[in-house]
Structure formats: structure tokens, C-alpha cells
């Protein structure tokens, strides 16, 4: 139909525009120029010969992976009359809830700033810069006094906001009726039921092999494991992102996991990426931000070093401090219901040329934020690669876990899905937990860890 064709052309045009600014575009251009020297490239069929050259040399595959990567994050084609905020979040009351939540966070951060008389950002003196550069690889050994800092918010504050989320057009009668939500989430988002989930996660079915189940010691490896590992190595040799994503639905061999995830996210450590990371490191050395102290405090409270279980504390600083300075993260706010906090250079209040985002990546870390990075430390040991993987995971997936949105993969839908499934298929357990007053634990505070006794919260109570 005409409409679908014009939608497709629009998507293609937008992806081409995005890819034009990427490293891959510059590389392809260089390769094309260099290939003119080759004997098989003839002038009369220039376009076809270069395309053939790209196919043989593997560059077409790289382009395919880049397009696949863009499509994964591309927001669904929307109506031309829809304003940008509608793309971020279509439901008006959710936008408002996210807006007031953000305002609370900003107020909390501003009040911390004024109470402690610490500036939001400060240029480091040269001596301090040298010192930080020297101990860059062992920032965990630092023991700064962070007792005055409190986290901007803890997961339980966010849970409270989600519990109080209400649609003004929804009839929430006082008397119990079929329309009453028995769980914590009170908004009627569409969630999948078991038959739909079975279809969605078809690779988890009983008749399909899964690593983690069908490779246990009792099962002979010839039945599934050997073949699956062999296919995994082939997928990596082909360097095809889409194939890797399909393959990994049946589990990933431990030895191949790091490379497979990097392939699916289309991360390859090019010299430009390492340079970019070094630039971010320089930004960390030059400017000290208030959010750095929040990051320090969070890491110390949640994921500091333990001889047996976690030895990557220094990596967490190296990733999170750089993450806060990375302006490329700002791009994801086009499809995130959240918006980056704004400020002005001192003395230039209200002048748009002096408007900046704070922190530079627009993401204010909360208590528990380092949990997003910690598991990745077990897979990647090179800081710039670890950084790239985390950043890509954040702008594709993790941001949905701490913003108020109606997206089916957002935290509200996930909580509602959990509650609905529990209520439908384990009603006695659900009822029992409600009766004993363990409503938060029974429903979904399983995934909202309780805050530390020292953590404090957004209301100012400690």
C-alpha cells in the first residue's frame, strides 16, 4: 500500500542520515576510494563493481550489522502530526508523572548542592588532575569522606511513585469490583498472558534445546551442546548481528558470551572508539562533577570489592565517571520518556547559547545505578570495551528500568506483568502474601532492593 511504501522510504532515509555521521561511513568511503586501484573495478560499471567488492571483503556485512543495530533502537514509525513528546511517551498522564518525578530529583540535587556548598561542576586544579591521572587504575583505594552525601533517590522511592501512578480517566471505584487491581500497579497497561508469552519466547519451549538446561552433566553433549557450540563459533566467524541475536535465544556458551553480546550490540573496538574513551577520561580528569561523589557513594555502598565475589570496583569508577561525561548518550532521550536536566553557565541564566545539560550525559545516577555495570565486569576486562558495551546496553535497555513509561518493556509494564501472572496462575500465593501484609515483597519489591540504612531518600529522611 502507498502508506507502507512511504513509511519504508522515510525509515530508510532516516537510517541513512544517522549512519552518515558514523565511523563506518568514513571507513566505507576510504575503502571505496582505495578499491579504485584494484583491477576488477571497471569504470563503466563502477557502482556494481564496488558493491561486489564490498560483499566479498566483508564490508557489506558490517553495513548490514550497522543497519540492524539502528533498526533495533529505531522508534516505531509514528504519525506525522504526533509531536516529539508523543514519541517519547504517548500517554499524557505518564508524561506528567515522569515530569514531576524529574522535578523532585532536580530539587533534591539542587538542595544537596546548596546545603553542602559544593558546586555542580568544578574545574580541577592542575595538581589535582595529575594526582587523579596517577591513581586512575586504583580509584577504589580512595576513601573520600562521603558521609554528607546522600543518594538522590533509592529504588523504593521510585517504587512509591509507580504505586501511586493513576490514570485520571480510569474508573477506580471505591468498592471492590472486577475492575480493581489487587496488585501494586494500578494502571491498565496491556500485558501478555501465558499463551502470548509462549509464542513470544518460543525458543524457551520444552522441545527446543537451551544451554543451562540441556547441557547439564546428565545429558550427553552430543544431543545438543556440541552442535550448539559449533553453530556459535560459526556465527562469530560470519560476524552477522542478526544471526547472533537469533542464535543466543537458545543460550550462549560461556566462552563465547562476551563476543556474542558485542556482535549483537554491534560493538567492535576500533581505534576511534578507544580514542573516544580516552577523551572521556580526559574530561573526567579536567572537571569534577557533583554526581561523581554520588557515583563513589553508590559504588561503595553496593558493589565495593570483596575478595571472593567481586574484584572489579575500579572498573566501575572508570566506566561510570566516563559515562557521565558522554554527550552521545543524549541521543537516546528521543525515545526515552525522561528528559535530561538543563542548566546555564553561571551568569548567563536564560541565554540559550549558554544552556548545557547536567550531567553531560543527562542521566543522574541513583542508589543502585552501579548494579547495571557490575555484571558486565565479569565479561569484559578492557575498560574501553566494557564502557562501550555498558553504554549500548544502557541506551537500548537499561534506561527503561528507571523511567515512567507505557512501553511494553518499561518497568511499569514489567511489574504489572509479574503481578498479573502471579495473580492468575498462583492465586493462593498472591492472596497469602497480601494477607500477611507482604504486599510489596509479594508483588514486585523482589526486584526493588531495600535501601541501605544509611542511604537516606528523596524526602530527606535518613
Amino acid at each position, binding site marked *: 500500500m502507498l502508506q507502507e511504501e512511504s513509511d519504508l522510504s522515510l525509515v530508510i532515509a532516516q537510517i541513512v542520515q544517522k549512519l*552518515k555521521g558514523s565511523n563506518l561511513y568514513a571507513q566505507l568511503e576510504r575503502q571505496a576510494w582505495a578499491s579504485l586501484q584494484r583491477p576488477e573495478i571497471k569504470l563503466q560499471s563502477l557502482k556494481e563493481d564496488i558493491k561486489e567488492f564490498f560483499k566479498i571483503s566483508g564490508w557489506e556485512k558490517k553495513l548490514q550489522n550497522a543497519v540492524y543495530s539502528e533498526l533495533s533502537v529505531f522508534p516505531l514509525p509514528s504519525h506525522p*502530526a504526533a509531536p516529539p513528546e508523543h514519541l517519547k511517551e504517548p500517554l499524557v498522564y505518564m508524561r506528567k508523572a515522569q515530569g514531576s518525578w524529574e522535578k523532585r530529583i532536580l530539587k533534591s540535587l539542587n538542595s544537596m548542592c546548596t546545603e553542602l556548598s559544593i558546586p555542580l561542576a568544578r574545574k580541577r586544579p592542575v595538581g589535582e588532575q595529575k594526582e587523579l591521572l596517577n591513581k586512575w587504575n586504583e580509584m577504589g583505594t580512595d576513601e573520600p569522606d562521603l558521609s554528607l552525601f546522600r543518594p538522590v533517590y533509592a529504588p523504593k522511592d521510585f517504587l512509591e511513585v509507580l504505586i501511586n501512578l493513576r490514570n485520571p480517566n480510569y474508573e477506580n471505584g471505591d468498592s471492590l469490583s472486577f475492575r480493581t487491581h489487587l496488585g501494586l500497579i494500578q494502571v491498565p497497561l496491556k500485558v501478555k498472558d501465558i499463551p502470548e508469552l509462549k509464542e513470544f519466547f518460543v525458543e524457551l519451549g520444552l522441545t527446543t534445546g537451551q544451554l543451562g538446561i540441556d547441557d547439564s552433566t546428565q545429558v550427553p553433549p552430543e544431543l545438543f551442546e556440541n552442535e550448539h557450540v559449533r553453530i556459535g563459533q560459526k556465527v562469530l566467524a560470519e560476524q552477522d548481528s542478526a544471526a547472533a541475536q537469533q542464535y543466543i535465544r537458545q543460550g550462549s556458551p560461556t566462552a563465547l558470551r562476551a563476543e556474542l553480546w558485542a556482535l549483537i550490540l554491534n560493538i567492535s573496538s576500533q581505534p576511534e572508539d578507544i580514542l573516544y574513551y580516552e577523551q572521556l577520561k580526559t574530561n573526567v580528569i579536567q572537571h569534577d562533577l557533583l554526581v561523581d561523589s554520588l557515583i563513589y557513594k553508590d559504588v561503595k555502598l553496593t558493589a565495593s570489592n570483596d575478595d571472593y565475589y567481586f574484584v572489579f570496583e575500579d572498573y566501575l569508577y572508570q566506566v561510570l565517571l566516563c559515562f557521565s561525561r558522554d554527550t552521545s548518550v543524549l541521543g537516546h532521550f528521543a525515545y526515552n520518556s525522561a528528559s535530561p536536566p538543563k542548566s546555564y553557565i553561571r551568569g548567563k541564566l536564560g541565554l540559550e547559547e549558554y544552556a548545557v545539560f547536567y550531567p*553531560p550525559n543527562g542521566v543522574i545516577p541513583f542508589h543502585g545505578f552501579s548494579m547495571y555495570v557490575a555484571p558486565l565486569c565479569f565479561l569484559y576486562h578492557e575498560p574501553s570495551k566494557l564502557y562501550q558495551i555498558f553504554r549500548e546496553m544502557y541506551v537500548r535497555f537499561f534506561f527503561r528500568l528507571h523511567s515512567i513509561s507505557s512501553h511494553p518493556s518499561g518497568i511499569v509494564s514489567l511489574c504489572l506483568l509479574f503481578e498479573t501472572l502471579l495473580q492468575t496462575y498462583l492465586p493462593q500465593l498472591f492472596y497469602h502474601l497480601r494477607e500477611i501484609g507482604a504486599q510489596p515483597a509479594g508483588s514486585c519489591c523482589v526486584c526493588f532492593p531495600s535501601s541501605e540504612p544509611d542511604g537516606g531518600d528523596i524526602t530527606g529522611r535518613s
Partner: protein
Amino acid sequence: MSRVSVPCHVKGTVALQVGDVRTSQGRPGVLVIDVTFPSVAPFELQEIMFKNYYTAFLSIRVRQHTSTHTPPKWVTCLRDYCLMPDPHSEEGAQEYISLFKHQMLCDMARVLELRLILRQPSPLWVSFTVEELQIYQQGPKSPSMTFPKWLSHPVPCEQPAPLIEGLPDPSRVSSEVQQMWALTEMIRASHTSTRIGRFDVDGCYDLNLLSYT
């Protein structure tokens, strides 16, 4: 194709309900919105655009101008178009929708009046309607140009002059040159949109407190 907005007058919604409207038990599940075009002659409808607000199903009836002296009759042009796949949940509840004339059941050549019939069978919602209703008709066609005679009626191919030995075929050369010219034009026209990556303003990142707007 271009389109032109048609000024319309949207009358207030009328609820259709069985029995006594004043009872609070149960809210109306059917609303009717009449759309008239007081200052416009009968026109050809191109597109209807609106923002949904919790309407589950939409039907549209149209009254068209007939050339004969019979009074114009109401005809259904859209029947039970689904806006919300699950009327009890939020999916599709606040989306922007466009309906085009090729989706209609009848010809929309001389529209006089429209009647939108909104249905929301679920009792969960307090109210439902459609907002920001806009009607479009076909825009003016681009002015027709008269082509010079040699462009619209090319002469039959002349017999090509015999090729001189040693020179390449002229038609092949011209197609190659054409291709190369197209490639150079493309390179000239493209520009990158690389990100700058700097978060400070001229090396300074000394900030005021965060703004709330």
C-alpha cells in the same frame, strides 16, 4: 499529494443511551459527533485526522450532495474501525490516527456533512472522545505545463552514423559519463551530521543550579 485543511464546525457530542440518561449506573458507550462545513461547497474528502482519547471503535457516516433533486441520504463510509485492540487496556488510547479516502467504503466526492459514531464498550473509562479533528481535501493540482512539441513527440530514431574505427561506441561512453556524473553529484550533495561531543561552552562548565522548566 498536497492536501488542504477544510474549516469545519464540530458540534457537541451527543450520548446515546438506553433508558433514563440521568441514572448514574453505567455511562453511555456510544457518542455521536456531527461535523458540518458551513462555509465550504461540497468537496472531495482526502483525509480525516484526529487524536484518539479512549475511543475503541469508530464508524463514520457521510451525507453527500447529489446532482438530482433527491434529498441527500446518510451512507456509512467506515464501519467499526478499531482504534483500541483491547478496549480495557491503554493500547492505542491516545494515538494520532489518519483515515484516507481509499479506506472508505464509498466514494467521498461531494461531502456535505460527516457523522462520527464513537463506541467504547468498556465500563472502565470515565469518558472518551476524539480530539484535534481535522478534515483535508485534495490540494490544488500542480499547474499543467505545455511541453514543447519535440519533447512530447520525439522524432523516430535516426540511422546512427557508421562508427569510425578505433573509437569507442558513443552510446556506451555517454552512459558511463552519466553514471560518473551522478556519483559526483551525490558526493557533493551529501554532508555528514557528526556529533561534536563537547559538553562545555568554550571550556567553561561552571553551572547555576538546575532549571525546573
